[in-house]
């Protein structure tokens, strides 16, 4: 059994519960345990960094300090949380002045950070801490013929090089193929979905979503598998608005990659949580689940 500290992030408790439950269930099947960090707080996301960078670093550093006490790698499922936690850790290590300020602020709250936590994304853990042969060995449901567009979004492999190629990552494709499904070509797989700009710059965000949905459809995808709660929410919940604005007719289920893994592993439907997906995936999956 491998142990990890788990940082769910706000989305998991709010709008993406199925990412949380499916990730935990898949981890169990892969002999991993995700131990939720006690009393974690919001990572601050991109907005806090823009408003007050040092406060944003300190917001994250509190989580890093809590994780350091436990000693395991800190795993985030949300790409934004992963990016911000990682960025804080990098700045802490690279800039002595920032390190001093962060630790003085943490000291006010009775904490300290030494920079020993390894921040990881759950895609990295599921794709690299277990062999693809081990993944294949756990597949119980035949997904052959299911065409899946692998969508990374813009935050998980950029801006700093990490566990995969920043321009043409392959971890998700390897996982999808190991599950027995087919990863379709998806040239826009690392493009932005608009994120929270859907609230403040709706026209721009809807345009980005249209391109993503159109590109996946043009490449023959039956569904999209993503690693990011913002991407999932935008492409799923706003698909109707995209259709209306661009006079399109998309009906593309947007799954978290952990939901797809859960389906392939035969995990109970409650943990997979397809009922939370707004564009229903039942029709696309029915042919495969019925085999």
């Amino acid at each position, binding site marked *: 059994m491998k142990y990890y500290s788990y940082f769910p992030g*706000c*989305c998991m*408790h*709010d*709008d*993406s*519960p199925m990412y949380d439950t499916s990730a935990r269930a898949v981890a169990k099947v892969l002999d991993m345990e995700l131990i939720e960090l006690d*009393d974690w*707080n*919001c990572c*601050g*996301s*991109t*907005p*806090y960094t*823009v*408003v*007050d*960078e*040092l*406060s*944003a*670093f*300190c*917001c994250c*550093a*509190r989580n890093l300090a809590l994780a350091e006490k436990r000693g395991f790698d800190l795993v985030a499922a949300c790409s934004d949380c992963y990016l911000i936690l990682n960025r804080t850790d990098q*700045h802490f290590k690279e800039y002595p*002045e*920032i390190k001093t*300020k*962060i630790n*003085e*602020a*943490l000291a*006010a*709250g*009775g*904490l300290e950070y030494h920079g020993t936590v390894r921040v990881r994304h759950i895609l990295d853990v599921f794709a690299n801490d277990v062999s693809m042969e081990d993944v294949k060995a756990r597949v119980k449901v035949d997904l052959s013929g299911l065409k899946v567009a692998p969508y990374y979004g813009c935050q998980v492999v950029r801006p700093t090089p990490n566990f995969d190629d920043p321009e043409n990552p392959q971890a998700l494709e390897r996982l999808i193929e190991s599950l027995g499904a087919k990863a379709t070509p998806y040239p826009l797989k690392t493009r932005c979905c608009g994120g*929270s*700009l859907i*609230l*403040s*710059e709706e026209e721009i965000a809807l345009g980005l979503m249209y391109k993503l949905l159109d590109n996946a459809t043009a490449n023959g995808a039956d569904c999209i598998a993503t690693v990011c709660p913002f991407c999932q*929410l935008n492409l799923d*919940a*706003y698909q*109707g*608005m995209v259709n209306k604005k661009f006079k399109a007719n998309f009906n593309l289920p947007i799954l978290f990659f952990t939901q797809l893994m859960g389906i392939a592993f035969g995990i109970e439907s409650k943990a997979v949580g397809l*009922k*939370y*997906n*707004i564009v229903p995936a039942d029709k696309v999956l029915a042919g495969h689940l019925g085999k």
Partner: protein
Amino acid sequence: MRHHLSTKRTRTPILYKLFSDTVYNVGMIPRFGCMSRFYLHVNPFGALKAAPVALGLLRHGRLQLKAKTLKPQAKRQLQTILDKAKAFGGAS
């Protein structure tokens, strides 16, 4: 925003300020609360346009009306840390 370069042509700075204030006050980000405050702040009628999306999320159990918050002790600790960070006046 940190360098006062934002323009009034975009409402994103308002969203970001609401977001960071919520992180300070609650310790977490409740989507429903954030969306509502943003629309009330910039354009209450804009909320009507977003209503089908909000209803879709609500119908699928993805919009929590009651926000999850940090335990009082953890929230106090976070706010103490953030107050100290703010007193430094910036990262550099």
